[in-house]
């Protein structure tokens, strides 16, 4: 085995040799069985590294983390609230636009199931929700959601099992986000980000329920 070439085998695997060096190494490999065998082993090492699995720690570390963040929250809470309220204004509203695509996966899936229905729904969809008095809009939206859920309960049997399962998963995710947002808002009612978060999440729920009901109606 030629040490000069052996030392370049990893670079060869990683595609880091120029064309001249690569051609010279390949010529050497054609005549050196040991380097050729080593090359195969190094490739296996790389494949093994890429196949390594992550493992959870043997002990639950959350308790220690929770204690620490509770201590910090108790110490700097006033500053934290002010600082975070400002920091949410732009970046977190952007994050919200991603976060609140909670039904995007299901929506896209449904789109493949019923393009026509979605096109109709898109034409009807409400303009972007504005932040208004929380009590007013959440009350109206809660009523709309209740009506749509009643209709869905009647229509659900028209949908296939896979569709019903996906819809329920989406609704569960949305409901969890709504519940979390309401809890957070109780602690910080004036937080613009949280108000928008709640409004968008509820709007998504209304949209999803409308789409599913339209789809079920189309199958009747």
């Amino acid at each position, binding site marked *: 085995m030629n040490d000069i070439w052996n030392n370049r085998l990893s670079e060869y695997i990683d595609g880091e040799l120029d064309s001249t060096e690569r051609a010279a190494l390949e010529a050497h490999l054609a005549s050196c069985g040991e380097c050729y065998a080593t090359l195969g082993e190094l490739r296996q090492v790389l494949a093994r590294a890429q196949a390594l699995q992550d493992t959870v720690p043997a002990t639950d570390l959350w308790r220690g983390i929770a204690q620490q963040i509770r201590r910090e929250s108790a110490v700097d809470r006033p500053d934290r609230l002010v600082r975070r309220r400002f920091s949410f204004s732009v970046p977190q509203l952007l994050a919200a636009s991603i976060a609140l695509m909670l039904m995007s996966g299901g929506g896209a899936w449904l789109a493949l199931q019923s393009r026509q229905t979605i096109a109709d729904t898109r034409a009807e969809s409400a303009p972007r929700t504005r932040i208004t008095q929380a009590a007013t809009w959440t009350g109206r939206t809660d009523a709309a959601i209740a009506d749509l859920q009643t209709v869905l309960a009647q229509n659900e049997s028209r949908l296939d099992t896979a569709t019903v399962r996906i819809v329920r*998963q989406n609704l569960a995710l949305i409901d969890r986000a709504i519940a979390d947002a309401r809890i957070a808002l109780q602690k910080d009612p004036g*937080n613009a980000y949280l108000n928008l978060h709640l409004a968008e999440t509820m709007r998504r729920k209304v949209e999803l329920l409308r789409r599913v009901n339209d789809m079920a109606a189309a199958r009747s």
Partner: protein
Amino acid sequence: MPRQVLEDTLTADSIAADTALAASGDASAFERLYRTHVARVHTLVRRMLDADEADDVTQDVFIRAWQKLSTFRGESAFGTWLHRLAVNVVLARRKSVGVERGRFIADDKPLDDVSGNRVTPELSMDFEEALARLPEGARQVFVLHDVEGYRHEEIARMLGVVPGTSKSQLHHARMALRRHLDR
């Protein structure tokens, strides 16, 4: 949409929602993020440092993530952001415990210890164990390059060495580990 893609999308959306909630101070949302990501972070830390440090450093990573969540801009996935933070915490730890640049040059004895002669069954060790016994410099380069997918230029910047050193350490690590492929 294939079912797996749909489920991945739903998971990503759920993580994004939890990230936003955690950034608002919701510890329950942050705990869900912890549960989702702890295996990846802990494994990275364990491979980069000694196993007995992994728990403490993993906790430190998540506490720092909580402290820095307000700076998370959502430009990358939360998991990517957290992973980079974990690498930074590990490298800072490496400096703080006095692991000097010299450890990146020749540390032949432990490397020989890992590579040695071809192992017999009774002396053989698990691939992960062999990885843990590499000299720290070679181990960190191997983990960052072959396991985590960083490029030599990035690794060199992170570790404060030249790319050639990173390449050399990677080759030594691979040469040592090829003896433990059958386990």
